[in-house]
């Protein structure tokens, strides 16, 4: 009974707070006023309206070679207005075939940071009017296209219903000792002074507080906040042959107290320097096809790029997409010991914060765990409120950066294996696989920066992933050797079928992913995996020479 009472009082506090919040109140009032008028506009009335306001406060401090190179403190608020005309079945957001997507040009609308209700309501009104007219124009084109073009292969509705949610969360603030952290950044960045062959190095601390306000005509009212601190170490150099080499080490946490201590950060700097040194002196690898291990974090990026982007719901529907997996539902697409989920409700993994965690998506839907692959069988997709065949509802993956239109995106991609072995055994398995294939060596990919994948129908359904640190593991027992100059290439279906075994060494990659709906924070969790065959091709190489004069060292006086 006590517990119930406590919960009830929390709800009351939340509701009271929501009523007092001038921003939410103004947004709700203007939403209701606009909806009342625009939903009666003939012949094309509005049936759904949503305002999302993102308040972003960002502090960025950067240091190089012992000095602060820049320090910024910026606060903005941006508004997105989503207008839907027509019906859930067919509305203005429907894909227009054969027309260029002009949504790429949309720019964010600035709104006051000082809670001024008069200014906010004028801006809301003006933006709504503009969006409504543009939506009407688009809807007429959609209706016309229905008449003149063939029916799409997926005739699912354009929008799904979602329950009304009211939520007002704790609003956190950026809180850290700037002087102390500036001194830490100076100290850490000064380590690079002893390495003149590193041309660019940087340690940056970026603190972001993002508060999202969302109201829509479903009755949803949300106000929630996320805080991220990202301490990032980066270094760049060039090999003698002009190849540009880059390594970085991100540390993303929700509370500054959870950042690694100075000893650990110094260790990361040293490790990065050692790896970069090994890389610049490493031999170039010729194109190769054979067994390889993708180390946990690298494997997380690999899955994000080659698989994650292809299971985004909207790609299964678009007539322009390659739809690699659309018709493979309930079919085996990878070995049965692999399952893949996207679970943005996870805020931590083994005690570490996950960058891709969020409470609600940008369509007012609570985040949910989406089962994508269960025991090798494709079971689902990442869904926004744009339904696809057999998936009429959102699973809370509609995301965007301010100023963009929502599409389905990854949050926390979790690759789970039921065939795990300790890493030493995985390495042995790699050598065995090489022997079996008569290969003198296999490869281990330790770090991957990202990649490109063509999902469009008019391009080849291939991917390219950019490894940063690769080692050659010899069958004859020679020590492992750092190598450079390769990119991983392949086709997704074939590559996934080549997984033979995984490690038990799960690790996290915390990053930011850019796609149609802009940049969003993401995480990938994965064990290391052994693949029986991976193909690498020569990396495009810079043609510049390393610097002519030696790096300056001593002050002249």
């Amino acid at each position, binding site marked *: 009974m006590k517990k119930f009472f406590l919960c009830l009082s929390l709800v009351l506090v939340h509701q009271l707070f929501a009523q007092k919040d001038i921003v939410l109140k103004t947004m709700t009032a203007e939403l209701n006023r606009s909806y009342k*008028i625009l939903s009666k506009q003939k012949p094309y009335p509005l049936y759904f309206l949503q305002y999302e306001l993102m308040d972003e406060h960002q502090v960025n401090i950067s240091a190089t*070679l012992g000095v*602060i190179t820049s320090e910024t403190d910026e606060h903005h608020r941006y508004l997105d207005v989503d207008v839907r005309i027509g019906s859930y079945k067919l509305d203005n957001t429907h894909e227009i075939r054969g027309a260029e997507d002009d949504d790429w040009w949309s720019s964010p609308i*600035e709104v006051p940071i000082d809670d001024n209700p008069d200014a906010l309501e004028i801006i809301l009104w003006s933006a709504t009017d503009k969006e409504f007219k543009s939506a009407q124009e688009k809807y007429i084109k959609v209706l016309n296209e229905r008449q003149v073009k063939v029916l799409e292969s997926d005739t699912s509705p354009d929008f799904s219903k979602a329950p009304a949610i009211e939520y007002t969360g704790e609003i956190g603030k950026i809180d850290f000792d700037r002087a102390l952290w500036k001194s830490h950044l100076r100290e850490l960045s000064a380590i690079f002074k002893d390495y003149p062959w590193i*041309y660019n190095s940087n340690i940056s601390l970026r603190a972001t507080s993002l508060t999202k306000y969302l109201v829509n005509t479903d009755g949803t009212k949300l106000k929630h906040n996320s805080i991220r601190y990202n301490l990032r170490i980066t270094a*760049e150099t060039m090999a003698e042959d002009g190849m540009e080499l880059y390594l970085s080490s991100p540390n993303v946490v929700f509370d500054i107290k959870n950042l690694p201590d100075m000893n650990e950060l110094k260790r990361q700097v040293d490790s990065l320097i050692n790896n970069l040194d090994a890389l610049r002196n490493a031999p170039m690898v010729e194109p190769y096809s054979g067994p390889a291990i993708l180390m946990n974090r690298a494997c997380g990026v690999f899955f994000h790029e080659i698989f994650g982007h292809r299971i985004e719901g909207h790609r299964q529907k678009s007539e322009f997409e390659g739809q690699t997996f659309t018709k493979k539902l309930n079919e085996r697409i990878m070995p049965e010991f692999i399952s893949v989920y996207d679970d943005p409700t996870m805020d931590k993994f083994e005690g570490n914060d996950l960058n891709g965690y969020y409470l609600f998506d940008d369509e007012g839907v609570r985040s949910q765990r989406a089962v994508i692959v269960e025991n090798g069988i494709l079971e689902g997709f990442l869904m926004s409120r744009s339904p696809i065949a057999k998936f009429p509802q959102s699973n809370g993956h509609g995301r965007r950066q301010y100023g963009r239109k929502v599409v389905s995106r990854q949050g926390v991609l979790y690759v789970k294996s039921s065939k795990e072995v300790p890493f030493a055994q995985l390495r042995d398995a790699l050598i065995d696989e090489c022997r079996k294939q008569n290969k003198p060596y296999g490869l281990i990919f330790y770090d991957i920066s990202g990649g490109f994948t063509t999902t469009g129908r008019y391009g080849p359904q291939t991917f390219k992933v950019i490894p940063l640190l690769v080692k050659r593991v010899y069958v004859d027992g020679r020590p492992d050797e750092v190598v450079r100059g390769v990119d991983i290439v392949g086709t997704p279906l074939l590559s996934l079928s080549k997984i033979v075994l995984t490690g038990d060494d799960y690790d996290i990659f915390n990053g930011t992913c850019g796609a149609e709906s802009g940049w969003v924070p993401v995480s990938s969790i994965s064990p290391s995996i052994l693949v029986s065959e991976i193909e690498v091709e020569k990396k495009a190489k810079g043609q510049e020479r390393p610097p002519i*004069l030696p790096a*300056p060292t001593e*002050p002249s006086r």
Partner: protein
Amino acid sequence: MNMKKINSKFEIRNPKQIKIINLWVGILTLCASLTFAAGELNNSILFRALSDELNRSITRLQLESQAKPFYIAYRVLDLKEIEIRASFGGLLLNNESHSRNLYVDLRVGNYQLDNSNFICQVSGGGVIETDETRLPVEDEYFALRQAIWLVTDGTYKKALETLARKKAYFQNKQTNDTIQDFIAVRPCSIIEPLAKFELDKNKVKAKVIEFSKIFNKYPQILESYVAFKFYAGNQYFLNNEGAKNLREERLVSLLVWAKAQSDNGELIEDFTEFHGKDFNDLDFTTIENAINAWAETLYMMVKLKDSEEDYTGPVLFLGQAACELFFQILGLGVSDVRAPIYENEILERNMSRQNLGIFSNRLGRRVLPNFISVYDRPNKKEWDNTRLVGGFTIDDQGVRAEDVELVKNGKLTGLSMCRTPIAKIKETNGHARYYKNPFGTRHIGFVSNLIIDSEQKISAQELLKKLKELAQDYGNDFAIVITKLVSRKPESLEERYQRFYQNRGKIPPLLSSPLNIYKLNLKTNALELIKGLDFSQVTPRMLRDIVVTGDKEYVYNFVYRDDNGNEYPVSVVAPAVLIEEMDLIQKKGEIRRLPIAPRP
């Protein structure tokens, strides 16, 4: 106007004279360094890092079998900036920043033929940057040296590649540019004070919010903002010819923009700006009155119907319109007078065109009526107690800025020059501006404080009388008075890209459209605001059609903004001008349905 001190120099130098200048440069370098040795400036860590890396690079930076650089200049812009913006009484942003950017001008070859004035696409700019880089904002010798070293290296390699391609281009074309690429100058050693960044931020914030609220009372205004910007800092300059100087940088701006919708659905945008060098240059009471009047005019415009007839006849340009007229045709025409060579036509087609340098071949010829003379006076600080913002004592190439006579009694006598000569002018007058384009950077000569001096001045009443007489001659029953032309507001990168793609390859009109147009009724003398007219085919000839000018000068401070993101503060001092004949044709603006829901 006493203009005796202004020298217009354009003479052709022979190579011997250049050698003498070089010797002179050497002597002055020695003198300059002696002067500085005792000065505080030499203790500046930034200057020390720049100087040490410059000395090392000029003597030792050399790729085997390639030439060393013969010229290296470092320019650092160290600026603190603040921006406060508000809309309809709500604060949009309130941000401060500090940046320190290094710009490298490195040349290989020689003064006759170097890597400049040639636009091509070369590789580079990855790990090792070229042309410019960010420097640490904290003074630490080693970190500064490291950044300067790398960008110098990248710029040197780019310069070698560019020069090789330029030579190949000339080889293929069987032609050569016989005009020197670069000219020697006396090193400048002016040291201006270190700029102070002083501002009552709370007062400014309150004023910006208050001004932005003015627009709340006009329901026809759909979008608007008021922005305050202030930057203060210094330009540090150093080159291997011995120049070492420090320029104070300051600009304070209040920018106002609004978009309104007329009763017939037409969207009307207007932008106005107020500038000074110091915070105290902005008189908030005057500005408030000006914004109110400006908003009122915009409100009146939305109530107007479009003009139903074209117009041919005399036009009187007043205030901002007269200043923009002189700047857009003459000011831009005497700027950037040496067009660069493009390696291929595709590059040239993809550059945005800006009407720069159209007077470069008209030296000695008539460009204005004989009663008008024009000067570009960067050293002029104010005019009739109004601050001018276009000036500077040292230009972006570290050269002492000289006042220059551009037009004497209607004939073109000078141009705004940088260190890139043309056939008839082989000297700079210190008007260089750093200019970025999508394929690289260069320096261009650009006007600073453009002063129009007329000997045929009449009072406002006489001007109107003359306008009416001329209009009657044309058989019109009204005459046209224009008080404002469209000016360009600051644009985001995205907005500039959009504009760039829309306008690629198109030649922009010589004069922007009129915004505030008045119809003077010849019978009743009533002035009536009208809209829906635009200029038809303006040519430089228009300047020669000036019949007479007013007797009062208008001071116009603004920022010139181009498609590539270059921004230069400019001042124009000009009287009202009466043009004998112009054609104005009907123009329709963008029409959109009126707002559906009433404004809250």
